[in-house]
Structures are given as C-alpha cells and as structure tokens.
C-alpha cells in the first residue's frame, strides 16, 4: 500500500508538486493521470525516494519514505521514466546486478532471474549484450530488474512510452497479473486509453495537485460525462497536453 500525504516540492522557482495526497491499495492498479508537467513524475520520484519532499510525507506499507528510505526501497520495484540499462551487460546480468544490490544471494537471484525471463518472455535476447536492444526489450529488462526482489509495491513512470502495440498488451497483462497476486501497482500516464483499460482507481493530477480520485466509473458520475476522456478534460479544466 502506498500513501502520499500533502507532498510539496519546488525546483528553483517552479512549484512541481503543490499539494498531493492519495492512497494506492494492495490488489489494485492505481493510475496517476495528468497532462505533461502536472507533477506526476515528481510525485513518483518522491515516492521512490530519489528526491525528498519539502513538506509532507509518504509511506510504503506504512514505512515513511522520508524517515526510512532504505527500508521503504526494499518494498518497492521501480521503473523510472525512460529507464536505461547497462549496454555492456546482457539482459540477464542487468537483472541479476539489481538482485545483488537488493541483497539476494547468488542462487536466489539466478533462479529469480530465470523466472522473470520466462514471465516476461525474454528468452530470445536474455544473454545478448543490451547495446542493440529495441525499446521493448529495454523496457522488459528494466521491468524484470525492478521485480527481482519480489516487491509488494510496483511503481512505473510512463511505462508504455515508446512501446509497440504488442508490447503494450504484454505489459497490461503483466500488471493485471501482479494485481491479481495482491501487489499494489501504481503507474503514471498521460494516455487515456491506457488508464481506462487498466486502472481500478484513478488519481487525476493537474498543476501539482490532486483534482479528483476514484474509480473510472465514479469519475464519470462525478463529472456527468459518459466517457472518461471528457470527464478528465472537465476535471483538469483544459484539454492541453493530453493524447
């Protein structure tokens, strides 16, 4: 479970996140929806402890990201925006390296890597060096790397960026499966179809603050719009930055 309380963050004179509070439950997929520059990435970065909030706090399974960042990190798998992998290592080595950094023993991380390679259907390129990987292969590797330590909570920042249709469908299946296994899945997107197709809960962020949250159905009811896209536009007050 992920909980954010009154997060705030400036970069110089720009307020990236003004006041963000929400909750993402276990066994559900929560979508962070908002136009470009709304503060989705900054919110996620605070959650996965790469940057610290100026005020407010967030917790992963009840553990404060400000107070106990190392402990919080153990409980989440993270796929940052445009996550890169090491070009001179094979996919398997890339994944296994993160296993080592998560403190897994050699045997454990090897068997877990094998498991993930089969789960994500990576057999074909698992032992090639990552230099010539396609975007889809890179994302799969980065995703497997994020899941190496069986995290209860999974955070993904724009995971479908640059993926083709087949890869997107594969990713959706995976996220659904994680949800069904009881994981808490939180991902950000500015693509409506994706959020509509996948999310159990939606948190709409605009101008650095949460403007609405609830199930897709609740959002439609709340705005009186039949379709999620219209509901969204109504909520953020403009259609700018959507696709």
């Amino acid at each position, binding site marked *: 479970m992920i909980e954010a309380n009154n997060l705030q963050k400036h970069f110089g004179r720009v307020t990236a996140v003004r006041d963000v509070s929400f909750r993402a439950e276990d066994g559900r997929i929560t979508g962070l929806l908002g136009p470009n520059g709304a503060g989705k990435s900054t919110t996620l970065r605070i959650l996965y*402890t790469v940057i610290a909030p100026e005020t407010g706090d967030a917790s992963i399974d009840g553990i404060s990201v400000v107070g106990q960042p*190392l402990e919080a990190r153990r409980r989440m798998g*993270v796929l*940052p925006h445009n*996550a*890169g*992998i*090491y070009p001179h290592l094979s996919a398997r*080595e890339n994944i296994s390296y993160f296993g080592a950094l998560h403190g897994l023993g050699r045997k454990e991380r090897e068997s877990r890597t094998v498991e993930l390679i089969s789960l994500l259907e990576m057999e074909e390129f698992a032992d090639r060096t990552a230099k010539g990987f396609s975007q889809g292969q890179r994302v799969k590797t980065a995703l497997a790397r994020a899941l190496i330590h069986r995290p209860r909570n999974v955070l993904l920042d724009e995971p479908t960026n640059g993926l083709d249709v087949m890869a997107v469908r594969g990713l959706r299946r995976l996220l659904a499966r994680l949800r069904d296994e009881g994981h808490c899945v939180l991902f950000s997107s500015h693509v409506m179809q994706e959020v509509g197709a996948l999310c159990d809960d939606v948190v709409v962020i605009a101008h650095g603050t949460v403007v609405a949250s609830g199930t897709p159905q609740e959002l439609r009811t709340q705005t009186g719009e039949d379709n999620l896209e219209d509901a969204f536009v109504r909520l953020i007050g403009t259609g700018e930055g959507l696709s």
Partner: protein
Amino acid sequence: MRAILSVFRKEFRENLRDRRTLISALVFGPLFGPLLFGAALSLSIERGTSEADKQVTLAVAHAERAPNLLTHLRQYRVKVESVAYDDAAAREAVKEHRKHLVLMVTDDFSSRFQASQPAQLLLYVDSSDANNSKEVSRIRTLLNQYGSLLARLRVMTRGIDPLVLSPIVIHDVDVSTPASRSVLTLGTLSYLMLLTMLMGGMYLAIDATAGERERGSLEPLLTVPVRREHLIYGKILATCAFMTLSLSLTVSAFATVLQFAGLERFGMSVNFGPSVALAVIVLCLPLVPLGAALMTIVAAFTRSYREAQTYLGLVLLVPTLPLVFASVLGLRPTAGLMTVPSLSQHFLITSLLRDEPIPGSFLALSVGVTLAVGAVLVFIAGRLYHREALLG
C-alpha cells in the same frame, strides 16, 4: 560492504567489455607514452653523442713527413688514411665528395719545423657542405691543440713558463649538464606515468555519474536499498582498479623501453629493473584513490558525458602543475614539498631512478598526506551522490 563489492564487480566487468575504456586505459597510455618517450630519448642521445664519439676518417697526403702529428691525431680517434694526392688531386677529391677533407703535409714541413718556423699544413675542405662542418672543426681543433702543445714544449725548453702563452682562459659553463638533463627527462617520465594512470580511470569516473545519468540508469540505481555513498565507493574502487592496471602496464613498458634507450650514455645512471619498477608502482599507488575521487567529483558536476570529458581533460593536467613548478623553480625534495600529492611522488620516483637514498620521513609524509587527501575526496564524492541535482 557487500553492495560496494557488487558495484565494483559490475563496473569492472562492464568496463572490461567497453572497447573505448579498454583502449584508453590499457593500450593507448601504457604503450604509446613509453614508445614515444623511448623514441625521443634515443634520438636525442644519438644526436648528442654521435659527433663526439664518431671516428673521423682523415685522408692525409705525405703522412710520412709528420709522423708525430699523425700519432697525436690517432690518439683522438682519427683514422688516418694515407693517400698519394698532389694539390690538384686533393682539390678534386674534396670537390667530388670522395673525401670529406684532405690534409696535405707540405714538403718543407719538416725543415721549417726544425727551424722553429711556422710549418705549413694544407687542409682541403668544402665549406659549402654543411654535413661535415663538425668533422672539419674537430680536426681543426685537434690540429690547433697539437700546435699549442708544441708551443708550450718549445717555450719550456727555453726556460719560460708556458703559462705566459695563456693570457686568458675561457671556461664554458654549460647549464645543461648531464645531471640537469636527467632531471628534466626523469621529470617527464614520472609525469607520463601519473598521466597514464589518471587516463586509465577517466572513462570509469565519467561513467559513474555523467554516463549513468545520460543512459538513464542512474535513477533506477538510486532506488535500490543501498546507501548512495556505497554505490559511489564501489564505482571509485573500480576506477582505482583500472588506474592500477594502467599504471602497472605503463611502468613495465617504461622499464622495458629504457633498457633499450641507453640512458647511461647520456650520463644518467638510471636503474630501472623489475624491483625498481615494482617500487615505482607502489610509490604511485597512494595517488590512485585521490585521482579516482577527484575525477569522480568533477564528473559529478557536469551535465553530460561530453562535458565531463572536456573537464576531465583539464583535470588530467592538475598533477602536472606541481611538476612544472618544480622544474621551473628548480625545486629539490624537502619535507614540506613531500606534503604535495603528485609532486612528492615525482620526487620519490626520480630519487629512486637515480639510486639516491630516500629518507623514511619523506616516504611517510608522501604516503600519509596523499592517502589522507584521497580519503577526504572520496568522502566528498560520497556526499555529492546525495545531491538531488545529480539526477539532472
């Protein structure tokens, strides 16, 4: 600690597979530096020694008329070749470059000599031929030398102090003594070693921050449950390993090259056997963490790989500054100077190569201060990895 080792292993393996890192760390510096150095050195030695030592062949016509003179010339490594030229033949031979120069002993040489009158020698030369000007001047010097030797003997037999013939005496003060030349040469040597050592770790240092950021792998890395300073320590450790490899290769290459360069002919007694090479490596080792941390810190402030490369190119010059000061100011090793990293290594290496004794206190100061500065820099690098600006 386990995380540091994991990072170290991964960085080391990854960079072993990176052709650019490998070439710059293990091929370029370690091979080209010593080879260039050796080539330049043997060339300058060649030029410096060739003229003085080379045997000069002198064609002499009517050598039988001046046997003592020829004995004198032979003593100074002049090979006398008797020829049966007359005046015209001698001119012809020199003009056609069949002989560089011809010495003709005139027929009244002996009689004039015995009468203590100036006895004539004819030296046929082609002054337009620059190639043998040194040969000519050497023969001329030897002949003059012989003349003044005889003059002294003559005044002595007349009971006069030969010193009256030397109203003035000129001493050449050649600033470029063999000793000073060797200081310069050995300075270059230690400089090249330190430079190569730094170059060996450059790409790893860039990779640690600017490279990771540019590839987008930094942010995922920061989400693992490992303290950030431990991540950077692992990276610095890998940088150190590459620098050490680079250093060892360079020193070995220098040791090999200098065997063939023939420094001793230059008046330098350089002992650079395997044990000295090992000692040089050990002396440089304390500088490894300092250099690695310094490069990592500088790379952490840059915004891109390219920018990091530019700045690190400048950082590579930093260890040269003390060396430049030392040679310009003619500094000699003192306890105070032993507290300057890179300069102290330079002095110690130089002393080692010249077989001079190294005081234990100098050694302790050099190692101690260098390691301490290195530790501080490693700590600073660890702190820098906590900055949010690192993410760019």
